């Protein structure tokens, strides 16, 4: 519209052009401001290292260059073309022709004026010599003769003295004093335009006869022929148009160049502004992708890029990325669940290891401890709890008695021992109690490395149980094998004695009697031994009744007090009830009191203290004496059959006691007191009734 206003004056006025120009300038200024702000914002983003800003800058530069280069070329070509075109309008030949035409017109008018001058002078001469009465007719004749328009004679006061007009309707106008003044000196002619016609107006001084100072004046008005007039005016009009245009050439160039410059700026600035929008639209998903990638690298898998419903490559990329993010999120959640499960399993394993009575220890190839439980520390008597990543050596396991164990582990780890030979048992003295510890090592391969699991078990009870079972089996067989021939032996001896009674002499009779008594006595002794063996090897107790321990002990004490032994019975509660076989429990208590009685032989003040109480759901029965105690040599295998410090007896007493107590789901501990004597502690679960 701005460009159109240059050429079309009817549609767009100058004011409109100015308004349009101002509007365009303001629009350009707004675009420049907008672009400047965008550029500042973009560079700030680049400085802040906001993702996508550099890509936006590159795209903006690319898009802008794509527009600026061709538009600039078009602009330069247009300006050059326009300038040359405008200059070509003002051809020297055209100007010369127009000047020639105008000059021709001017010369024609001058010739005509010269003609009027000659005619005027002729009329003036004629009138000057004519009488006053003849002036009008002479003027008429001369005008007609010279074919003039109007001829008027004025006196010096511009009064009309005579008049002749070709057109009688027109009244003469009063001449200009200035013109008369000029005409007073000589001829004065003037060319005037009047209603698209050219009129020659001439003033000629007319001498007055016999008067040298005063003059009359002749005015001649001669219209130019209309053909000549219109042609001359037409040439003048064209010449003036050309001159005006020529004069406006500089302004024309400036205005066209300015307009083209504004159009160029509008195009470039609009392109740059649009390039910002397009660049943002292009870079936005990529920026979001980059940002999302950054978030994902930080572990945020919840970042989903908005899908704008685009079906182009970027849309597909965004969809794929979102799909990947969701899968990663799912995998991460699963991983967390798995980690949680592993953690739970590890805790479970820790709990198991902690509560495991067996010691567990894992070492690597360099014998560094990777894992261990409390039982291992306890069994190896290690006080330092944090031994992970420390080498398993004598610095950690300080007790010398564990030296063979450590050596065995080291040898196995170093491969000095065959892998099949992976178990050893060691006897350890634990507070004067012999303890059997079994060490078992297994190698495991994990992640290309070989680690070793060391299992340490206290197998004292197991070994003891196995030993008891073996002894029970021996006892059962011995009882079976020995008991059968005893009765025939006894009967045979008695029959021999009965048959030969009175048939032998006294000496022989005496020998026979001693021999048969000896046989019968030894057979009885064997029967006692076999019965004890039978008791030891008998099946577990089947009969379960409620037994009041206090009452049972009181009934037994009554029998022993008669023997002169001071027995004290302390009862913390009136009734200590257990579920079991009363006879067997009686046998236990009798056995223990018998042992105490034997240990008190030779003591000046023999005393036995019995304490019964209930603690933690267990009936606790303690027997203490002030006797000689148990010899150290046998204290560790006191429950084994045939282990006894007494000269008489089978050595099965405490073995049977232990068997009965275990059958009652109880336990027994026998140890020497520091002040002398022995102490036996029995614990049996109390009855639930």
């Amino acid at each position, binding site marked *: 519209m701005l460009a159109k*206003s*240059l050429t079309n*004056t009817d549609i767009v006025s*100058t004011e409109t*052009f*100015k308004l349009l*120009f101002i509007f365009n300038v303001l629009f350009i200024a707004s675009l420049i401001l907008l672009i400047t702000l965008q550029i500042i914002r973009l560079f700030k983003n680049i400085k802040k290292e906001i993702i996508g800003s550099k890509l936006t800058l590159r795209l903006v530069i690319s898009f802008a260059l794509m527009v600026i280069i061709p538009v600039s070329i078009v602009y330069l070509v247009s300006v050059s073309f326009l300038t040359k075109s405008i200059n070509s309008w003002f051809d020297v030949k055209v100007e010369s022709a127009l000047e020639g035409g*105008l000059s021709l*017109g*001017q010369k024609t*008018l001058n010739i005509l004026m010269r003609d009027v001058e000659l005619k005027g002078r002729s009329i003036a001469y004629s009138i000057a010599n004519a009488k006053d009465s003849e002036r009008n007719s002479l003027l008429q004749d001369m005008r007609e003769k010279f074919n003039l328009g109007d001829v008027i004679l004025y006196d010096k006061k511009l009064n009309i003295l005579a008049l002749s007009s070709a057109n009688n309707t027109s009244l003469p106008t009063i001449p200009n004093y200035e013109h008369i003044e000029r005409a007073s000196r000589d001829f004065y002619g*003037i*060319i*005037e*335009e009047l209603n698209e016609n*050219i009129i020659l107006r001439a003033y000629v001084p007319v001498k007055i006869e016999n008067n040298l100072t005063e003059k009359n004046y002749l005015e001649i008005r001669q219209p130019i022929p209309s053909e000549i007039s219109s042609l*001359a*005016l037409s*040439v*003048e009009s064209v*010449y*003036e*148009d050309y*001159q*005006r*245009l*020529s*004069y*406006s*050439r*500089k*302004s*024309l160039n*400036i*205005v066209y160049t300015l307009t083209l410059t504004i159009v160029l700026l509008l195009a470039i600035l609009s392109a740059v502004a649009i390039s910002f929008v397009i660049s943002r639209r292009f870079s936005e998903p990529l920026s979001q992708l980059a940002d999302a990638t950054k978030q994902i690298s930080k572990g945020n898998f919840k970042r989903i890029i908005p899908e704008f419903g685009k079906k182009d490559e970027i849309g597909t990329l965004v969809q794929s990325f979102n799909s990947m993010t969701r899968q990663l999120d799912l995998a991460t959640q699963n991983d967390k669940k798995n980690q949680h499960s592993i953690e739970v399993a590890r805790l479970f394993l820790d709990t198991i290891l902690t509560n495991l009575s067996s010691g567990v220890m894992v070492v690597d190839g360099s014998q560094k401890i990777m894992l261990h439980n409390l039982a291992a520390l306890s069994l190896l008597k290690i006080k330092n709890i944090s031994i992970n990543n420390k080498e398993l050596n004598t610095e950690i396991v300080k007790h010398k008695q564990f030296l063979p164990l450590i050596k065995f582990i080291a040898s196995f780890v170093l491969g000095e021992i065959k892998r099949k030979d992976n178990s050893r048992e060691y006897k350890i003295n634990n507070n004067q109690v012999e303890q059997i510890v079994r060490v078992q090592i297994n190698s495991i391969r994990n992640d290309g490395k070989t680690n070793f699991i060391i299992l340490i078990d206290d197998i004292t009870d197991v070994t003891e149980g196995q030993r008891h079972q073996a002894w029970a089996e021996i006892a059962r067989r011995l009882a079976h094998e020995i008991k059968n021939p005893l009765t025939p032996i006894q009967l045979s001896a008695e029959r021999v004695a009965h048959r030969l009674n009175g048939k032998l002499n006294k000496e022989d009779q005496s020998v026979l009697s001693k021999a048969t008594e000896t046989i019968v006595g030894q057979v009885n002794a064997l029967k006692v031994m076999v019965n004890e063996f039978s008791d030891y090897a008998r099946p577990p107790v089947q009969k379960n009744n409620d037994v009041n321990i206090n009452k049972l002990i009181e009934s037994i004490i009554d029998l022993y007090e008669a023997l002169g032994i001071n027995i004290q019975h302390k009862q913390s509660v009136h009734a200590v009830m257990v579920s079991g076989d009363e006879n067997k429990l009686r046998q236990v208590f009798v056995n223990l009191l018998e042992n105490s009685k034997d240990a008190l032989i030779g003591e000046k003040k023999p005393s036995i203290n019995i304490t019964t109480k209930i603690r933690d759901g267990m009936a606790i029965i303690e027997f203490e004496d002030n006797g000689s105690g148990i010899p150290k040599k046998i204290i560790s295998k006191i429950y084994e059959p045939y282990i006894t410090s007494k000269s008489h007896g089978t050595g099965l007493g405490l073995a049977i006691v232990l068997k009965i107590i275990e059958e009652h789901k109880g336990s027994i501990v026998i140890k020497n007191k520091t002040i002398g004597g022995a102490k036996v502690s029995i614990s049996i679960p109390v009855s639930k009734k």
Partner: protein
Amino acid sequence: MRFLRKIKHAIIFLIIAVISAFVNAEEKISVSLLALNKEKNTAYVDFDQSINLTPELITALKRGIVLKFEVRFLLIKPTKFWFDKTILEKTATYQIKYKNLIQQYEGSNIKGEKQYFNELRDGINYIENVRHWNVGIIDNSSDYVSMVLRVRLDRGGLPKPIQLNMDDDMWNIESLTILDMTGVK
């Protein structure tokens, strides 16, 4: 004042306009006289101005550019707290141009009367001094206190490219005369 009131047919406000101290020698148009005459209810304005054309303008004139001047007369009554009230407004034009064919300057005065001059100065003199310009009818009761006369070169008469070339300052020819008549009756 009593003397002026006795004149029934014409109350003449004759104010000699002093050339403003702000008008410098280079001013292209300067008004030296501005007077308002009232005959019955008709107001007539007389003003004298001095038009100084620069050589560039004379060249333009000779190249066929018509120098058309627009004169605008305002009679104003100030209003408190609002825009001034215009009681009378009149616009007219006069011009001078060079006729190449007859090689004379054609002066056309404010009344539209044409006259040809061999000399430019004569032509300018012809349009400079304005007398008895009918600016309209005013009521006797009208209360006015200011006269405004604005004379400027009408750029609308210039060729289109010159009109559009806002960078060209040579065509900015303008004069503004404001005459405060407070207290003059």
